[in-house]
C-alpha cells in the first residue's frame, strides 16, 4: 500500500443482519475494505436461563435446555440429563442410550444442514438452501413422530427418554439413512469443486491448531484446524464407544476445511444412525428407579404406585446428593458442558452451561483480522453459531 494516511472507518453490522445468524452485533473497524479490528457485542437474546434454572426442579430444567441451541435440542437435553444422572449415580438403560444416539445424530445432521443452507446462502450459492431444507423437512417429520414437536423436542428424561420409539420409526429412519448419502453427494457437486465457492472459502478465516486450542474452539471449528478431538471418541458417553465412525479433520483451518469437516460429519452421523437402528437393543426406555426417574406413562393408567411416584416427582421434584459434576457432550457445534452444583434440595444450586458457540465466537476476532469485509460473513457462517446458546 502507498503511504497515504490510514483512515479507519467504524461501521456497525447487526444485530438485525441476515447473515449474523441471529442477533449478533459486530463493530468493525475498516481500513478501506480490510478489517482492522472487530468487536462482537452479544447478549441481545439473554434470557437468564442459568438464573431461571436455579428456581426450577431438575426435571423442569430440561425444557429450558431446548432453548439454548434450538437447532440441536436433543444434544442439549442429553448433556443435561447425563449431568444429573452422574450426580445421582444412575445409568439409563441400553435401549434409551441407543435411542438417544439415534436422535442426537439426526439432530446433528439437521443442524449441519441448516448451517450448510445458510452458510452457502450467505456466500451466494442459493440452490443448496432449498435442497437442505427439503431434507430437514424429512428430519422434522421424524422428530415430530418421536417427540410430538418439530423443534424443541424435550424428549430426554433423567434416566432415559420420554417414551418408546413409535411404530414405523425404524422404517422411516432407515429410509432417510438410505437416501441421505446420495443427497449429500448432490450438495457436494454444487459446492466442493465449485470455483466461486473455493475462491470465497479457501485461505479465509485461517486459525492455526495452537491458536484454536488456546482460544478454546471446539467441535468442527477446531477439527478444521487439524486437531483430532471429538468427545464422542475421547470421553464416550451414552454407548458411543459401541459405534464405528471416524472423526474427520481438516488441515489448513480455513473456512473451506471447516466446510469439508462438517460435510463428512454428516456422512458419519448417517452411518451411526444406521448402526444404532440396526442394533437397537430391546428393553426399557427409562430406568426403573421410582425415586428419580419418571415412571412410564402407560403404567399410570394401571398401577397405583406409578401414579404416586409420578405425582411425587412432578410436584416435589428430586433431590440429588450434595456435590458437583461437569459433564460435556459433543454437540453439533462443539463441546457443550454442564456444570451442576447440588445442595441436596430439589432445585439445582447452580447450573453453568458451557456453550460451544459462545467460545467459538470468541475466536472470530482472531480469524477475520486482516480479511476483507465480504469475508466476515463467510467466517461467521463457518463457525456455525447459534445466538440462543451464546446469550442463554
Amino acid at each position, binding site marked *: 500500500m502507498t503511504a497515504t494516511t490510514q483512515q479507519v472507518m467504524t461501521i456497525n453490522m447487526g444485530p438485525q443482519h441476515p447473515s449474523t445468524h441471529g442477533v449478533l452485533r459486530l463493530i468493525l473497524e475498516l481500513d478501506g475494505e480490510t478489517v482492522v479490528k472487530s468487536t462482537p457485542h*452479544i*447478549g441481545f437474546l*439473554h434470557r*437468564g436461563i*442459568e*438464573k*431461571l434454572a436455579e*428456581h426450577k426442579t431438575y426435571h423442569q430444567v430440561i425444557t429450558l435446555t431446548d432453548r439454548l441451541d434450538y437447532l440441536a435440542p436433543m444434544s442439549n437435553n442429553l448433556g443435561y440429563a447425563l449431568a444429573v444422572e*452422574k*450426580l445421582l*449415580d444412575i445409568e439409563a438403560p441400553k435401549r434409551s442410550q441407543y435411542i438417544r444416539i439415534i436422535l442426537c445424530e439426526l439432530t446433528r445432521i439437521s443442524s449441519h444442514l441448516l448451517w450448510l443452507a445458510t452458510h452457502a446462502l450467505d456466500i451466494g450459492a442459493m440452490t443448496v438452501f432449498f435442497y437442505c431444507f427439503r431434507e430437514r423437512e424429512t428430519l422434522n417429520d421424524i422428530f415430530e413422530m418421536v417427540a410430538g414437536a418439530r423443534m424443541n423436542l424435550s424428549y430426554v428424561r433423567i434416566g432415559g427418554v420420554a417414551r418408546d420409539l413409535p411404530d414405523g420409526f425404524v422404517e422411516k429412519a432407515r429410509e432417510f439413512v438410505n437416501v441421505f448419502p446420495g443427497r449429500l453427494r448432490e450438495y457436494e457437486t454444487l459446492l466442493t469443486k465449485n470455483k466461486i465457492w473455493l475462491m470465497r472459502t479457501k485461505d479465509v478465516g485461517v486459525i492455526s491448531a495452537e491458536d484454536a*486450542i*488456546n*482460544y*478454546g474452539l471446539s467441535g468442527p471449528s477446531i477439527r478444521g484446524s487439524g*486437531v483430532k*478431538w471429538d468427545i464422542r471418541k*475421547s*470421553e464416550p458417553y451414552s454407548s458411543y464407544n459401541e459405534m464405528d465412525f471416524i472423526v474427520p479433520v481438516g488441515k489448513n483451518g480455513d473456512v473451506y476445511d471447516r466446510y469439508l469437516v462438517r460435510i463428512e460429519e454428516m456422512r458419519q452421523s448417517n452411518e451411526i444412525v444406521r448402526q444404532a437402528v440396526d442394533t437397537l437393543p430391546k428393553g426399557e426406555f427409562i430406568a426403573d428407579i421410582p425415586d428419580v426417574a419418571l415412571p412410564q406413562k402407560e403404567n399410570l393408567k394401571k398401577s397405583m404406585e406409578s401414579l404416586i411416584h409420578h405425582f411425587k416427582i412432578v410436584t416435589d421434584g428430586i433431590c440429588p446428593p450434595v*456435590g*458437583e*459434576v*461437569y459433564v*460435556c457432550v459433543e454437540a453439533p457445534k462443539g*463441546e457443550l*458442558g454442564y*456444570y451442576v*452444583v447440588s*445442595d441436596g434440595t430439589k432445585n439445582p*444450586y*447452580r447450573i*453453568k452451561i*458451557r456453550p460451544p458457540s*459462545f*467460545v467459538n465466537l*470468541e475466536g472470530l476476532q482472531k480469524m477475520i483480522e486482516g480479511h476483507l469485509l465480504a469475508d466476515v460473513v463467510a467466517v461467521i457462517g463457518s463457525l456455525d453459531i447459534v445466538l440462543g446458546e451464546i*446469550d*442463554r
Partner: protein
Amino acid sequence: MAEVSAIGKKLKETFPEAVTGVKTFRGELTVSINKDYIGKVAEFLCNDDESDFDYLSDLCGVDKSRLDNSNAFEVVYHLYSLKHNHRVRLKVEIPASNPSIKTVTNVWKTADWHEREAYDMFGIIFEGHPNLERILTPEGFEGYPLRKDYPLKGRQPASLREVYRKGEG
C-alpha cells in the same frame, strides 16, 4: 483416568501452600487453590508435560452464600488436556466483600469472555484482564444477576428502561 489423583498429589507437592484441599466426587478431581496462587498454578498446569492442561473448558463463578453460609464466591476452572485426555476442576474461594482474583487470560486466551461473564453475573473483578466489561447484560445494568441476593424478577431502574425505549446506547 487412573492418573487423575496423581495430578492432585503432584500439585500438592509443587505448591504445598497453594493447595487447600483435594477431593474426588463421581470420579472428578477437584483441587481447591488459595487465591494468591492461581496465576502460578494455572501456568504450571498448562505448561507441565505430565498435566499439560492446554485447554480451558470453562470458567465460572458460584455464589456460595446459600450453600454453606460462608459469604464467599468461588471461581471454578474446568481444565482439559487434549494430549492426555484428562480433566481437573480448580476452585478458588474469594470473599464476597472483596471479590477479586488474578486473571488467567495470559495462560488461556479463551478465558477472556468467560471472565467477563463471571464479572457480569457475579461482579468478580479479574485483575489484569484486558477488557473487563459486561458481556451479556447491557451497559448501565445494575446489580449482578446470578448472585443469590439478586431476585429472580429483578427490576432495572427506570433510567435504563428509558434508554431502551429511545433506542440509545
